């Protein structure tokens, strides 16, 4: 093979890769828009929504609570150690509550729910795809967007802010526990500093983020499941892709929202 041919092959590969990337992101975006509109458009399958609220929300509580408590505790220790270098260790309560409500609460809840729920949605919808259940839905006059995807997207968007609120409380409690047991803070002072410093806006930003993350989680699960093909292996691939893409998009969206609100 000559050098010119080789160069041509390289350019072709890069071009084909770029085209495919554009195609996939375009298709994902269209799917996301369709999924969003399907939440607003009747018929609403409320029984299905109820089921999903319990499956996605209630059963995510333990994993979100457990991770939040450890994150809050570790955060408190780090802030204390870092702060001690310039005599600022007394700010642990304030920085913990800020870090948890604005960043770590929604991000940790989002990532944990992404692991559980994106994968679950992708596996379930993917299996329904490969066993022709999605075709069956359509032959029974049910629109899969309305019946399958809208309830899952709506449920995840409803529960993730609630889970984030819980993660906020438990995360702060984790910081408090470490603060009073090992860092020599007095309990009442820690709590007073936390509540005096916290503004409603900090919590609100976290909740807005959670709303967006909830959408990302459900749509990534649904998209990869809906487009899976090729039996068990295809479903496995859909599950992995759903979790990975949801996690990356959550972190990217988190950065963008933070930049937008903190100018």
């Amino acid at each position, binding site marked *: 093979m000559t050098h010119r041919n080789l160069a041509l092959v390289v350019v072709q590969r890069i071009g084909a890769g770029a085209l495919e990337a554009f195609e996939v992101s375009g298709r994902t975006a269209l799917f996301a828009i369709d999924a969003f509109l399907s939440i607003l458009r009747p018929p609403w399958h409320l029984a299905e929504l109820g089921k999903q609220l319990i499956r996605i929300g209630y059963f995510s509580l333990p994993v979100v609570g457990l991770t939040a408590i450890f994150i809050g505790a570790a955060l408190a220790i780090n802030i204390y150690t870092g702060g001690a270098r310039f005599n600022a260790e007394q700010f642990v309560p304030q920085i913990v509550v800020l870090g948890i409500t604005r960043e770590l609460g929604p991000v940790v809840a989002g990532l944990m729910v992404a692991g559980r729920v994106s994968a679950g949605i992708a596996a379930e919808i993917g299996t329904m795809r490969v066993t022709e259940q999605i075709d069956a839905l359509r032959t029974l006059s*049910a629109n899969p967007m309305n*019946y399958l995807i809208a309830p899952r997207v709506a449920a995840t968007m409803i529960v993730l802010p609630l889970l984030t609120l819980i993660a906020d409380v438990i995360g702060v409690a984790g910081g408090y526990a470490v603060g009073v047991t090992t860092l020599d803070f007095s309990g009442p002072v820690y709590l007073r500093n936390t509540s005096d410093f916290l503004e409603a806006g900090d919590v609100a930003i976290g909740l807005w983020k959670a709303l967006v993350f909830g959408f990302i989680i459900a749509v990534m699960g649904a998209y990869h499941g809906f487009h899976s093909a090729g039996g068990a292996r295809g479903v496995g691939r859909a599950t992995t892709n759903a979790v990975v893409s949801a996690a990356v998009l959550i972190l990217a969206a988190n950065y963008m929202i933070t930049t937008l609100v903190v100018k």
Partner: protein
Amino acid sequence: MSVIPSRLELSGVEKSFGTKRVLSGVDISVAPGKSLVIIGGSGTGKSVTLKCALGLIKPDAGRILVDGRNIERLRGKDRDTTLARFGMLFQGAALFDSLTVWENVAFRLLNKNRMKRAAARDKAIATLAAVRLPADVGRLYPSELSGGMQKRVALARAIAADPDILFFDEPTTGLDPITADAINDLIIARTRALGATAVSITHDLASARKIADEVAMLHEGRIIWRGPPSALDQSGDPRVDQFVHGRADGPIQPAL
């Protein structure tokens, strides 16, 4: 050509996936109340033909007519009412595994027709009885049933909302001969009871001979032969002959 207007007609239907041409001009027509069985080897486009007819796959070219009306041109309510006339039995049953058997059977009644649960359950149980399943099966989940029972439930689900065009995708595949024959009997009985038109695809010739008024053979994306089941043995077409007698040697290369 026949004087009776077709209930369902596919004309010049073409479909490719990427560079692979699956259907290259399929023409079929079924008169009201008749049963057409499409036979053909694996990978000859039988499933794709059925999915085009059902509107699950959009053909690249050609028309699909129901009572002379092109279903692709139908919009909104017209399209809904036409698609509601269809019932489909999937090869793998395709039951919804998160719903109980009776909720599966009553799916369209509950979700589309917005029937009350009690009434829908009664209708589901009556439909289960029509496919010879006892009422208490209704409370089970699809995964708790045998393959033959799942097929029966799937048949019940396909007929529960009284469709008048029924599609059967490999209805007897994967069943023992006795269960398969029971499914054939049920298909005939239920299709007659509804006065429905039926289109089935299969490679099970015993089933084809039993349920068909007319058989059509699909090969390389085209219908190459059609006739009554009694003519299958004297088709005069070496490809049909090879298929009917199940020989690996002949004009058709086995799909390996």
